[in-house]
């Protein structure tokens, strides 16, 4: 019986030689139904072409490193099964809307700067001394922000967002969702520090609610929800007199 095989077409781009990226085809064995796209790339790297560059780490949908475009959709390649594409070829490209450094590797510096800018840590007006014990929370308070804390910074939402594609100054889905995670945290008092950044024209108001960010999120974070709820909250803060209270 002939060996089952699958074709992976991967983006190749060498900044020293290429002016534009190109697709290169690799025909590899598809022997195991549990093979994911990342396994295919690892096979290519190990047995066919060691020069293929891409990011990956945990192989279990936790680290968020292996996000790529798989047949035009942003996916974690460790969570995209080849059996869902076979016998058609699988086209693997770097995440859309980001500059490409080499092959499937994108420049994520801009994203990292945005992430840091929203101050994703608990801000206190006055720190509680360690001797006073931990900041206690009840389950209902944790439920307020838990969903938004599941983000693994895989950037699939940015690759799916046409608004970010058209304007890379847009703060973007993950950063705003993370800002909301901290703004909803009962231990946090940093809302006023984050507001100038998230409630401006390059923040929540740039979003026109395409909603694809929430569709592609591998962790069910729903960044579109975070953005629209923040729009409503900031509007209420502006409109209602009591809204400006801390």
């Amino acid at each position, binding site marked *: 019986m002939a060996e089952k095989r699958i074709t992976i077409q991967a983006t190749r*781009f060498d*900044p*020293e030689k*290429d*002016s*534009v*990226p190109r697709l290169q085809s690799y025909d590899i064995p598809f022997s195991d139904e549990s093979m994911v796209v990342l396994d295919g790339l690892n096979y290519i790297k190990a047995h066919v072409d060691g020069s293929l560059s891409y990011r990956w780490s945990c192989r279990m949908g936790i680290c968020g490193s292996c996000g790529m475009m798989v047949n*035009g959709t942003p996916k974690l390649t460790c969570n995209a099964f080849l059996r869902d594409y076979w016998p058609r070829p699988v086209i693997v490209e770097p995440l*859309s*809307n*980001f*500059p*490409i*450094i080499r092959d499937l590797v994108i*420049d994520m*510096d801009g994203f990292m700067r945005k992430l840091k800018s929203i101050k994703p840590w608990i801000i206190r007006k006055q720190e509680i001394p360690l001797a006073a014990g931990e900041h206690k929370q009840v389950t*209902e308070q944790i439920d307020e922000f838990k969903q938004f804390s599941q983000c693994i910074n895989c950037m699939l939402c940015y690759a799916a967002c*046409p608004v970010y*594609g*058209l304007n890379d100054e847009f703060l973007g889905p993950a950063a705003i969702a993370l800002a909301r995670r901290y703004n909803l945290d009962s231990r946090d008092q940093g809302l006023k520090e984050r507001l100038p950044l998230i409630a401006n024209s390059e923040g929540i108001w740039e979003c*026109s*609610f*395409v*909603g*694809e960010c929430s*569709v592609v999120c591998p962790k069910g974070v*729903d960044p*579109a*929800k975070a953005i*629209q*709820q923040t*729009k*409503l909250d900031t509007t209420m803060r502006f409109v209602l007199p009591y809204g400006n209270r801390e």
Partner: protein
Amino acid sequence: MSAAEIETPAHSATRTYRAPMGATWWTRKGHYFWYVVREFTAVPLALWLLWFLVEIKRAGAGAVGYAPHSSTPFVIFSVICLLFALYHSVTFLSLAGVIIHPRVMGRPVPPRLIVLLMFGQWAVASIVIAAVLIGFGR
């Protein structure tokens, strides 16, 4: 290739490539397509309102001059605009459950109930407006 496509970030010596976003990006996926349709529903509605203003102006010459319902193009365009308005309203109200997050007695209101209330208010408002219009029309 434009200069914008090949970039050398100031902080590194690495040359990068940024793919341009084509004007047809919204045709790549059904989700994008229906998003653009939703956003553009305002255009036919605005055109309809302008057309309606013209029809109202004709009423200045007396009741005889006002007969938009006897204009086939106006009726056809009105039906098309109604479909756009319905699509926009349904998508808008369906999303209300995601956006509005009130608490009653300290508990969050289920999104489905919010959507149901929205559609209920929409139906009541439509009935009231229709009743007023029909009432004044008689």
